[in-house]
């Protein structure tokens, strides 16, 4: 959840800089430490403040990224975990991975097509909700927003279980209703076994969880559009759709860019939402995405080298999306 807010403060203009003047360091230091010049200490201060945080990020985030790349060029199995020995095999894991039909027919489509569908659904539905909220009175808007927060606040783990229960193959609500309506026969239907149905349920889960972020952000964008723009378009005889296309969309284009790219990043790396569904933890090979495949390869099949290669592939894909994201953020003004 946490990274869902990373857009916040992204472009706040004019962060004031309190440059501590030299007199700030004028207090005498106690003890026998040699006195550094005020200038040196002023220079060192930000790095001293940053040091613990950067150390933690370095040791627990950057070093592991380096290590996963290193693992991906090794044949690293259970015996290597025990002995700590490494068998360097160059790019063999990547060659094996890229030559695997499973990557191209199952894992990659499951990841990418799902992300496209989920992002499109989240952004479209979130925008519609924002447009609706924008027409409401202040009180009604606040009330509806509070309710929408409930969907956002639900942890992925419990949210996924609720959807699994709703679609439960034996006793689920959907099956019972469809059976009563005569759509499904008494033998029932296992939607988790078939990958398009499996991912349709996963998409429903992800859209339900993700649309509040889009709605809230787009709504904030809508509220900054000056009234006059719409009134002018109305005078020119523009219909509702024309006004949306030619006034609303261009004005809040940066907002759309940010919510789309962030949603893409999140939906590429869904894990719990797939892993916790029936068959999603490796039982059904048709429904794994890159993340779950990497995890299953590593921890269930004890093939850490190949699992790392899959993870590196996923990371590279996310990194390229991130570059686009950063460019969008940095386009208009320097990060302050």
């Amino acid at each position, binding site marked *: *959840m*946490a*990274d869902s*807010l*990373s*857009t916040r*403060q*992204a472009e*706040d203009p004019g962060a*004031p800089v309190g*440059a501590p*003047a030299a007199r700030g360091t004028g207090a005498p230091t106690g003890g026998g430490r040699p006195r550094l010049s005020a200038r040196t200490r002023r220079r060192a201060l*930000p790095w001293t403040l*940053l040091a*613990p*945080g950067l150390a*933690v*990020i370095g*040791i*627990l985030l950057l070093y*592991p*990224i380096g*290590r996963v790349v290193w*693992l991906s060029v090794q044949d690293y199995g259970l015996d290597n975990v025990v002995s*700590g020995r490494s068998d360097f095999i160059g790019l063999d894991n990547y060659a094996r991975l890229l030559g695997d039909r499973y990557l191209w027919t199952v894992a990659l489509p499951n990841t990418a097509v799902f992300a496209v569908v989920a992002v499109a659904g989240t952004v479209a539905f979130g925008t519609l909700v924002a447009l609706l909220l924008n027409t*409401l009175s202040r009180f009604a808007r606040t009330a*509806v*927003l509070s*309710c*929408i*927060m409930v*969907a956002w606040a*639900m*942890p992925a*783990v*419990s949210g996924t279980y*609720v959807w699994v*229960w709703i679609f439960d193959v034996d*006793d*689920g609500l959907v*099956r019972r209703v469809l059976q009563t309506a005569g759509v499904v026969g008494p033998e029932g239907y296992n939607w988790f076994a078939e990958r398009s149905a499996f991912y349709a349920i996963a998409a429903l889960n992800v859209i*339900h969880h993700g649309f509040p972020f889009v709605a*809230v952000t787009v709504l*904030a964008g809508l509220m*900054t559009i000056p009234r006059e723009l719409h009134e002018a378009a109305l005078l020119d005889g523009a219909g509702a759709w024309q006004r949306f296309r030619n006034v609303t969309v261009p004005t*809040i284009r*940066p907002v759309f860019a940010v919510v789309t790219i962030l949603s893409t990043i999140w939906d590429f*790396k869904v894990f*719990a939402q797939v*892993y916790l569904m029936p068959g999603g933890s490796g039982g059904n090979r048709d429904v794994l995405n890159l993340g779950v495949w*990497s*995890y299953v390869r*590593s921890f269930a099949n004890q093939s850490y080298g190949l699992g*790392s290669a899959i993870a590196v592939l*996923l*990371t590279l894909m996310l*990194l390229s999306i991130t570059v686009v994201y*950063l460019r969008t953020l940095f386009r208009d003004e320097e*990060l*302050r």
Partner: protein
Amino acid sequence: MPAGPRARGHVRTLARVLAVAGVLAFTLFPAYFMLVSALSARPASGTEALLPAAVTLENFRFVLVEAGFLRYLGNSLAVAALTVVGSSLLALLAAVAVARFRFRMRTTVLVLVLTVQMVPLEALVIPLFLQVRDLRMLNSLIGLSIVYIALALPFAVWMLRGFAAAVPAEVEEAAYIDGCSWGRMFWSVLFPLVAPGLVATAIFSFITAWNEFILALTFMNQSEKYTVAVGLRQFFGQYTTDWGQVMAASTVITLPVMAFFLLVQRGLVSGLTQGAVKQ
């Protein structure tokens, strides 16, 4: 049938009310269904759980007392508390550095903090597992907390940076004129002004630690060390699942997060938009 402007207005209002009702139904249904399933005594099917004939707390009692969920709650609370304290402290220092100073490589640090958030946990879990294993810290709540501090840190820095930058430079300068050292200024001037941001950041770190699944699943393989997100899995029987119990446990996990979300909601909505929208 020609409709007057008044009739059209009525139709519009009606359409709007229906749309709002639809959105609310879609949004709230899973939470409602989770709660009613948890409150009904052994629901045989989803339709039965939808409108329970009798309300009972038996599922909650079973989950908390007999299934050991109290222990998982304790584990999760301990991990989340350590994560909150650690990440808030480190993030405060780092955020002050990037928000109140101009120095070389400052932009590089900011880009690093932003980029590192995008790395998928699926890529981190393999090397972190080996690292934690080598340190013999598997099944250690402290080990898990240290990793969570790193996970929560980039976002916490990013968020606090905005709060630290919002303090006017004049306030800081006034403190120096009064003869404060930098350290004194930090504690007496900057810290109280950034404190509300620190609360919001702490809540997000809490939610990160509370909801995290993949690392807890990998690091914790003794059932007495499970966190809530992983403990939930054990309600799934080999052949049958008691959905009343699963939903009761899910409700227990969800409630703290929801409470915190409501607490930060206001800051969340206004804060989110500052980033994406040019004012």
